[in-house]
């Protein structure tokens, strides 16, 4: 894609909105320093990449904060950069970037918002189509390792560079990725490995273990052999472990019986406790309270029930003697009889309501029974955790003789834990008994139909206290488990020393922990393999970067450098890149040295030996070579102020480089502060017919840009004359001559119209119809108007030649004469 135009508002040096049109081959922009030409290249960079390399490379990004927005842009306007790009088929696409308040680019393609530019390639992976002076310095005048980064950036290999750094970081420091559970496994197995190393009789096993996962089978073969040596010969294979355990237990029991055992809650037990806590609290919450309180009503309706029973009997008897009272025999009138029946109906309704409460009472009894059952299970589950350790209390004196004086700390820990645990468990037991008592009272009140709201209140209070005690107890156990486990290990070890069973103890642990040992070796194997992984990635990345930098790029850079170098230069030159150390692959070894030669001899360093102008030339060549390398959607190259510290010879040589790039198909946009040189570029590339702008001033409104004619019509006519006279002129040259005449005609017509009518017309916008109309309006003789308009007969309105076009020397001569005739009219 090539650039058709760019419109800038409020970005960097541009304040008021301004559009610059670009030639599809060569556009030159001249401006003295600080007139805003770099703002044009920065606008392109920002539009494509969302940031400029100047800001990107800055040590302090803070200093550049807010620098994209032009300070003079009025507050109500938003800075933007908009560019129209054309593909090979002439299709146009508008990229529109809006600078948001938080300095982020908001992208639009043809008016539709997009997250990124929809291009065939990821543009972060391809060389940027810019050659910028500050970037060249960053590339060359830095340390060799930083230069490697610069080349990676220039070649679009940044992702690769970052990838390698990330892999190195992961492989050298994987600790942060290792889950706690894995570290716990390592902590569990490590002491066993230390104990194994201390057993000379088990050296064969240790030797095999040192081989890692590969030696595991061999190690366990040795374990089996050592185990068998320590049990009676007739022992069956499956009985070896129990036999070893028995041997050890018997030997140790002669010294001390018991273990410092405090077992932590399993996940299942923790889950069960959480569920129970919730159940208990939910159970004695509002619904229970409400239901229980409702039962209180049962007591008050007892009297009603008795009356209802009495009325039932009375009504039954009245059926036989409806006119007299069945109890006293007095006469009953109709009013009284109706009253008796109504009262009976009311009492029957109330009795039915009471039945519902009776059902509720049964449900509460079932609920309380279940509650009690879960409570007992809960208490047993918790209490069991401390039973074994508390059972050690009577033997503390004996334990002291085993552990002291060597393990005073551990003994004290055990002693203190037992003491504190007794207190915590007593609290639990006490609140448990309280809750049992409260529960029994509630149960009795229900079964005796003597409900009392105060009883439920007490139950709720003691339950809250009990759960609080249970939680404290569980927390205490969890905190003390690792401490007691350490003490137990110490005790076990000391007992093994005293009983002479250290080797058996190690063998038992090796057998019992085989699965964990195997897992540890597997995990260690994975972590160890990261070193190889890193090496492989290092080498792979290095190869890829070397592939990009070495042979092809070096020869391309050399080729461009040769084109800039002049014959008068002292023979002190760039001589390729030294990337030998990078071949090793390691991240820290990655560096690019620039080689130089002085009259056939290698110099220590090009950076210290080459002049600034040569380094500048080299930087340009590296940028050009990388830009031409590989696939890129960009068919343009923006070159900002390339001429620095060069003599005239080098400047002229570089113009040829520009021409070659244009002829190679690149659209070049070049900016320079050097007026003489850029005019030289225009002159040397005259036949390319580019566009030329001059920035003639700078105010707070932005740069003042004018377009200057690429060539005068006199120059063009002289060139046409020379082509016509050249008998060897090719088809292409003759066609070029014919096009040049039309350029002359449009320029003459515009000039004449301005002189006659005072109205300015752009020559590039004129075609046959417009030229004819303008000439007629200016009073040109009809015969000359007819002839002049004939010069357009081989083109269409867009200045493209017709399908059947063929250059004709005589026709071109006629066109040339008519153009001359028109120029004479202008005078």
């Amino acid at each position: 894609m090539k650039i058709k135009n760019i419109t800038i508002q409020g970005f960097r040096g541009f304040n008021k909105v301004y559009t610059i049109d670009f030639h599809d081959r060569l556009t030159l922009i001249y401006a003295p320093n600080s007139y805003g030409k770099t703002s044009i290249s920065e606008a392109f960079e920002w539009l494509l990449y969302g940031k400029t390399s100047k800001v990107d490379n800055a040590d302090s990004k803070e200093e550049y904060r807010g620098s994209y927005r032009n300070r003079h842009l009025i507050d109500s306007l938003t800075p933007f950069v908009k560019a129209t790009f054309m593909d090979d088929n002439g299709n146009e696409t508008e990229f529109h970037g809006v600078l948001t308040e938080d300095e982020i680019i908001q992208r639009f393609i043809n008016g539709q918002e997009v997250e990124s530019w929809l291009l065939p390639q990821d543009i972060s992976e391809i060389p940027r189509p810019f050659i910028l002076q500050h970037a060249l310095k960053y590339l060359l005048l830095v340390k060799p390792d930083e230069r490697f980064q610069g080349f990676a950036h220039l070649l679009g290999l940044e992702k690769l560079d970052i990838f390698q750094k990330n892999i190195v970081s992961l492989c050298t420091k994987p600790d942060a990725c290792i889950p706690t559970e894995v570290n716990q496994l390592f902590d569990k197995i490590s002491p066993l490995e230390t104990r194994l190393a201390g057993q000379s009789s088990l050296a064969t096993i240790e030797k095999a273990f040192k081989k890692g996962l590969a030696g595991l089978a061999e190690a366990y073969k040795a374990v089996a052999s050592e185990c068998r040596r320590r049990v009676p010969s007739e022992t069956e294979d499956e009985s070896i472990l129990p036999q070893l355990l028995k041997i050890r237990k018997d030997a140790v029991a002669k010294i001390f019986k018991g273990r410092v055992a405090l077992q932590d809650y399993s996940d299942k037990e923790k889950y069960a406790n959480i569920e129970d806590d919730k159940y208990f609290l939910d159970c004695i919450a509002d619904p229970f309270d409400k239901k229980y309180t409702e039962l209180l009503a049962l007591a008050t309706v007892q009297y009603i029930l008795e009356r209802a029973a009495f009325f039932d009997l009375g009504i039954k008897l009245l059926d036989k003697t409806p006119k007299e009272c069945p109890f006293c025999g007095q006469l009953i009138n109709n009013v009284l009889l109706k009253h008796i029946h109504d009262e009976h109906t009311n009492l029957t309704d109330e009795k039915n309501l009471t039945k519902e409460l009776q059902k509720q009472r049964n449900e509460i009894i079932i609920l309380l029974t279940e509650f009690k059952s879960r409570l007992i299970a809960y208490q047993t589950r918790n209490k069991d955790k401390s039973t074994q350790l508390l059972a050690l209390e009577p033997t503390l004196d004996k334990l002291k003789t085993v552990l002291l004086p060597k393990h005073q700390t551990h003994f004290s820990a055990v002693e203190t834990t037992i003491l504190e645990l007794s207190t915590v468990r007593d609290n639990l037991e006490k609140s448990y008994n309280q809750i049992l008592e409260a529960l029994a009272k509630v149960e009795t009140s229900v079964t005796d139909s003597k409900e009392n709201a105060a009883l439920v209140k007490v139950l709720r209070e003691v339950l809250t206290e009990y759960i609080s005690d249970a939680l404290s107890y569980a927390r205490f156990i969890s905190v003390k488990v690792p401490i007691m486990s350490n003490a137990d290990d110490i005790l076990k070890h000391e007992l093994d020393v005293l009983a002479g069973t250290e080797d058996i103890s190690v063998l038992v642990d090796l057998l019992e922990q085989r699965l964990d040992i195997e897992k540890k070796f597997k995990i260690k194997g994975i972590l160890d393999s990261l070193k190889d992984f890193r090496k492989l990635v290092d080498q792979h990345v290095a190869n890829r970067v070397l592939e990009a930098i070495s042979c092809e790029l070096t020869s391309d850079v050399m080729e461009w450098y040769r084109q800039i170098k002049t014959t008068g230069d002292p023979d002190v030159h760039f001589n390729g890149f030294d990337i030998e150390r990078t071949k090793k692959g390691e991240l820290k070894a990655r560096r690019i040295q620039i080689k130089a030669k002085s009259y056939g001899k290698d110099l220590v360093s090009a950076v210290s030996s080459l002049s600034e102008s040569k380094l500048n030339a080299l930087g340009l060549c590296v940028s050009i070579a990388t830009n031409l390398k590989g696939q890129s959607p960009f068919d343009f190259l923006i070159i900002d102020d390339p001429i620095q510290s060069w003599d005239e010879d080098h400047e002229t040589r570089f113009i040829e480089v520009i021409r070659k790039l244009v002829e190679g198909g690149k659209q070049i946009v070049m900016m320079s502060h050097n007026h003489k040189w850029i005019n030289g570029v225009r002159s040397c590339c005259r036949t390319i017919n580019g566009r030329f702008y001059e920035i003639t001033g700078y105010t707070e409104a932005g740069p003042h840009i004018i377009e200057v004619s690429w060539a005068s019509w006199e120059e063009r006519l002289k060139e046409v004359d020379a082509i016509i006279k050249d008998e060897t002129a090719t088809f292409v040259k003759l066609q070029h001559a014919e096009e040049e005449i039309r350029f002359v005609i449009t320029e003459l017509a515009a000039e004449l119209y301005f002189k006659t009518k005072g109205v300015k017309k752009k020559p590039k916008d004129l075609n046959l119809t417009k030229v004819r109309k303008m000439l007629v309006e200016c009073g040109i003789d009809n015969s000359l108007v007819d002839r002049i308009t004939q010069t357009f007969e081989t083109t269409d309105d867009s200045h493209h030649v017709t399908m059947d076009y063929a250059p004709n020397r005589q026709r071109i001569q006629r066109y040339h004469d008519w153009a001359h005739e028109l120029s004479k009219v202008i005078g």
Partner: protein
Amino acid sequence: MNNKEIIQHSSFEEYLDELLAELSDPVHKRLIQAYRGNDPVKSMESKLGEILMEVLNHED
């Protein structure tokens, strides 16, 4: 340019494919696979942790 027809091509993705083809260790392959995506470092670190946990939780 027809915006809808454009499929972005990433040479870095291709590079990862090439690297994957050269790796023989399945653990290393999985780490590279995890590198793809929006947060490659975090994803790769999580994957390593996940692989280690798989070994730890394997009951055979």
